[in-house]
């Protein structure tokens, strides 16, 4: 089976330690997490993880089941790139002097969809939002002029076919009482049984 990029979307409770619980599912299997984002979701109190890995579908399916098995996880979905809308945000810091004299800033803005975030005497910060290729392209353009700092965010993704999580959560909140444990009738007679 073919390896490809998958985005795993996990709806969770907001619980300390859960990030670790999810992260070790990947590290235990020596799978590299390419990007990981945690954020609020469409529902107050429910957290949403976006995790990007490159693996075969079979592996990703098993990983999702392992993630869903965690007590504080509500639901895990996986999608390939065709099934989602996603964006990443990148920030680029370059010297204002160089930019002002050598770069056609208006071209940057129009051709690469860049925005100017900050302009100071000493440096300027641009931002680009988009797919990996788009943020990568601007690195190539700016590198010759001395890119002082670069950073890119994790991927955030929306599932095209999803109707959101509200209905599922209502199902999950439906109380189904568990049955009681069958008792061991002999446990009450311990004094009679012990003594060496």
């Amino acid at each position, binding site marked *: 089976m073919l390896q490809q990029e998958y985005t795993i979307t996990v709806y969770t409770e907001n619980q*300390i*330690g859960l990030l670790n619980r999810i992260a070790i599912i990947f590290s235990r299997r020596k799978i590299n997490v390419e990007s990981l984002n945690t954020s609020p979701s469409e529902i107050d109190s429910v957290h949403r993880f976006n995790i990007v890995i490159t693996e075969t579908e079979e592996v990703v399916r098993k990983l999702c*089941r392992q993630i869903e098995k965690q*007590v504080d996880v509500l639901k895990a979905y996986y999608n390939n790139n065709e099934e989602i809308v996603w964006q990443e945000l990148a920030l680029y810091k370059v010297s204002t002097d160089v930019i002002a004299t050598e770069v056609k800033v208006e071209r940057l803005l129009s051709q690469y969809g860049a925005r100017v975030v900050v302009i100071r005497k000493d440096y300027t910060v641009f931002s680009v939002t988009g797919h990996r290729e788009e943020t990568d392209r601007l690195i190539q353009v700016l590198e010759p002029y001395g890119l002082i700092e670069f950073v890119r965010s994790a991927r955030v993704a929306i599932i095209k076919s999803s109707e959101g999580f509200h209905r599922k959560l209502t199902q999950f909140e439906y109380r*189904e*009482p568990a049955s009681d444990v069958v008792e061991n009738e002999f*446990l009450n007679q*311990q004094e009679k049984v*012990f003594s*060496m």
Partner: protein
Amino acid sequence: MSSITQPLQETSPETQAEVMISGAEATMRCLIAEGVETIFGYPGGAIMPIYDALFHHQHEVNHILVRHEQGAIHAAQGYARASGRTGVVFATSGPGATNLVTGLADAMIDSTPLVCITGQVFAHLLGTDAFQETDVMNITTPITKWNYQVTEAHEIPVVLAKAFYLAGSGRPGPVLIDITKNAQIQAFSFPAYEKCKHIRSYRPKPVIRPEYIKEAAKLIDQAERPLVIFGQGVILGKAEKEFDTFLEKSGLPAAWTILGMSAIPTDHPNAVGMLGMHGNYGPNLLTNECDVLIAVGMRFDDRVTGRLDKYAKQAKIIHLDIDPSEIDKNVKTTVPVWGDCKETLPMLTDAIQRKSYPDWLKKFKECLEQEESKVIRKELNPSQEILTMGEVINILNSLTGGNAILVTDVGQHQMVTCRYAKFQDSRSNITSGGLGTMGFALPAAIGAKYGAPHREVVAIIGDGGFQMTMQELGTIMQFKPKIKIIILNNNFLGMVRQWQELFHENRYSFVDISSPDYVQVAQGYGIRARSVSERKDLEPALKEMMGSEGTYLLEVQVGKENNVFPMVPQGRGVAEVVLCKEDLL
């Protein structure tokens, strides 16, 4: 489902007006409200407030002071496995908590319900490398079903209710609750204790899909050579009766995994023996001849499947499991039947036709005959002078009538016991299966006795494993659970030695382990003991042991270089199971 119409708020009879109590006192009240009667533990600095509260409740709760925290958790495992209830452990922070790690990993892989309560340093000291501070939460994350750190007293009732619910429901597992010392001391207004029955992010049982039941029934009805393989799921799901009814109607031959053993009597008419590396010849060999393989509450461990690409490739596979992540994990299923087997088995029984497979069953019998002539006979009735492990188990069977709980450690003695032991009742075979923890048996046997006080508990341990946790003889000395201990002493780390003989050209690398005088050691703890090495003494000694009133330790000197066969060598398929060394190529 009828239960939905019933009132959901069930308050325990403990209900009282709210009172101000300490977190430690609240912890004890929660445990009592959960019906906890036995706690295995060891005190220390960070859990002292809880032990202080325990002091006031010691007439309601039985606390067993072990000699090492690993002993506490294995004892709690033995308790849980014998009783079907949740085992409870107390340990202090730092080394107390880290000593639980092996037991947690063991309980996790063998799905044993535990609630472990560890003390922790004051919340304001977390992360300062305080005395006996360790990051228990992160250490135990991969080996607990759930863990939680309590830093405020008011969290205790809710968190403990959740802990017991999670440990015991669905696929059971260990839960660890780490309580900082300030939370134990802090006073708060204790509400009426309410058991937890629902967590929105947690689904203990997957929804049963009737269409899959129908599909599975169709496959079973059409099958000519179907085989059932079952694991601990039948026992954990308390579905022994349902499983028996299913077997009776379906007429299917049934083989057990090491942890599934005793879910049906070993002499059940459908029973064909044990699966796995040292399981019986027939079920291993014929796994690759069946046309439909029905797996019930088992997880296709590599010790059961051998090489996966040579495992039951010809068969259609039906897998019944409560844990959705087990389906397709190792073996691709044709029909997955998600759900609690206590519910799915009766549905499947209703949907199938009554059948029998005399020709197919005959094949298992033929395999057994081969195994008997090449392996079993000389193990149980040896011609050579030196004793075998198998004959010890064989005599033990006749003395217990298959009614005792046998607790085994890990290694050759474990395989031999599971191969030859006879069981009548469920929850009789307690052993460390998934993790293979040497040192498990002695403390687990202590716990098993508290979990099933009316039953005879016999620990069968090798000389290597016994020396790993033999300090728990001190626990036996002090609390006097009446257990029987058999040490099968071959003066070697036998299983490793067997592999070195078979696969490393007899290079015995550090498997030659010497033993103390076990009789003197036991007597030092006030425990009756005897050692035998000759056949004429064996049966009388076993009789003396079983007839003795209190704890009794019997050391049996057995052949040093005996091997356990049959064997599915590592990296081979189940059909490549061999009956003797000469067949290994």
